């Protein structure tokens, strides 16, 4: 039997991160293909029902490490525990969510294990020999590369949130294995004292069925008000490009694209975004892309389903009116 496929179950304030659950869906597919078992490893101060949750999302095994010092993410401790567990159980593949904490942890783990790691993976597959093919964006997403790690083990990747679909919970059985790890205060050289959480504004981008994306062309007070009105009319979440963040119209956590989030809504409406690949990689999986831009030569018109050439200040009021009419009928 080949080595297991592992998914690192990241948990914050006692909750599993969505990307970890998404990875169970993707990991399941890979494990089935190479006929391996799918396992999760979770580090926390209190496992509680989380291990059973992981099983119901699709893993066969859960390795748990429980200790009061693991309440908050501690890079030294987490690295040490995960590396020792990997050396003990020799998984074939280790997948980690590309969250801020995942991106702090995974490189250090890979370096200690002297194995390869691909970052911000946007596509994953495995061939018949069990070689993981990882699609990673480069140069702002204008270029994609297929990366493999043919010799070193485990094959490691950090996967962007939103890339894989979240599996449904089902009733299934699994094994829970408690790992006794050596844990002490002295091992911590970079100590997380506290985590200050700030609530996201409005509906999270990743969960919205309609996402309105603001580009530089939408960054004027009056125009932005129209964009907000359109979003309200549609019940849509607002995201946008890096320039829109730099202009201060949207926040960092609303940024879509290479260095931001990946969204896969039913409808994406790009307003005043030119269509730079840095942005497009984050919306590529939307079912329908609608674009409004005043430049008829904007690259976005070659990457959308339906486009309207026009000034946002003229187009948006008409669009809002038409949608309201449609909603009434």
């Amino acid at each position, binding site marked *: 039997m080949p080595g297991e496929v592992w998914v690192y179950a990241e948990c914050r304030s006692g909750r599993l991160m969505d990307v970890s659950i998404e990875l169970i869906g993707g990991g399941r597919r890979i494990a089935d293909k190479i006929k391996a078992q799918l396992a999760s490893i979770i580090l926390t101060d209190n496992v509680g029902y989380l291990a059973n949750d992981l099983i119901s999302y699709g893993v066969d095994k859960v390795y748990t490490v429980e200790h009061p010092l693991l309440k908050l993410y501690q890079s030294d401790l987490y690295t040490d525990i995960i590396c020792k567990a990997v050396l003990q159980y020799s998984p074939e593949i280790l997948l980690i969510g590309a969250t801020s904490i995942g991106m*702090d942890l995974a490189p250090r783990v890979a370096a200690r294990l002297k194995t390869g790691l691909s970052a911000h993976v946007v596509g994953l597959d495995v061939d018949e020999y069990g070689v993981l093919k990882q699609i990673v964006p480069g140069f702002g997403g204008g270029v994609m590369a297929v990366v493999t790690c043919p010799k070193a083990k485990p094959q490691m990747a950090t996967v962007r949130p939103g890339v894989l679909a979240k599996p449904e919970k089902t009733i299934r059985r699994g094994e829970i294995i408690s790992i006794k790890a050596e844990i002490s205060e002295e091992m911590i050289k970079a100590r997380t004292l506290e985590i200050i959480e700030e609530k996201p504004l409005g509906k999270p981008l990743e969960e919205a069925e309609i996402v309105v994306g603001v580009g530089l062309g939408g960054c004027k007070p009056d125009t932005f008000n129209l964009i907000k009105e359109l979003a309200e009319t549609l019940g849509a979440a607002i995201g946008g490009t890096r320039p829109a963040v730099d202009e201060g119209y949207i926040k960092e956590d609303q940024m879509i694209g290479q260095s931001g989030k990946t969204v896969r809504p039913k409808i994406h409406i790009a307003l005043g975004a030119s269509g730079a*690949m840095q942005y497009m990689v984050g919306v590529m999986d939307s079912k329908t892309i609608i674009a409004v831009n005043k430049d008829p030569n904007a690259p976005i018109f070659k990457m959308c389903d339906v486009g309207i050439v026009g000034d946002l200040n003229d187009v948006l009021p008409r669009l809002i009116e038409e949608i309201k009419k449609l909603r009434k009928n």
Partner: protein
Amino acid sequence: MVKIIVCIKQVPDPKEFSKITIDPLRKTIVREGIQSIINPLDKHALEEALRIREKHGGRVVVLSMGPPQAIEACREALAFGADEAFLLCDRLLAGSDTLATAYALSKAVRRLKPYSLILCGNETVDGSTGQVPPQLAEFLEIPHVTRVRRIEIGEDEAVVESMLEYGYRVVKVKLPAVLSVVKEINTPRILSVFGIIEASSKKINQWCVSDIDASIDMVGLEGSPTRVTDVFTPEVKRRCEVFSGPVEEAVGKAMRRLHEIGVF
């Protein structure tokens, strides 16, 4: 502070990323004629180092790894105010992935001992992996913190804020450490004429693999566990039905089409 090491990388200017093409036969990335710059976040790292030096003293030493032309990036860093620059430049380093790069940098850093702090940009605009700083720390057996937006230097430790998706972490880290910074940390200064003049008299040291005592089988392609097996340009298959003309007409037509294809 004894010494602050700032790791910088010369990268193609993201404004010109659209000019990057792929050689379909050799499967390589063609970036000829594209302007090179210091990776934007590395400038924030350098700025932070200069500010720490102003407050706590010490020397700011820049370390880069790259082809011979990366000397321009080193020169620019000196013009910003760094005291000394080291460029790790050797054909043997070509093809290094993040692990091999971090290893090579760690060997160079060991030659620069003693140091109090290593600052890096959180990620580069070309690869955007953000992996090198934590991996460098691992090779040096010192702690690291990524996505740092605030640094408070203490006796033999620093208290830093590390950005999360929603909120931040407060981390107390023992020094020396590797801290990789985000753009929120500061606004880099503007290059001054005096800086440029002064830089011309400062030294840029070039090192090859044998100078840093690195094992040849741990650098370059040989030392890289990952392989790039294919490169391609993402293909976008969409309807691309674009409506223009008078606004009312264009919006009307677009809405009808959206209705027909079952969107609205």
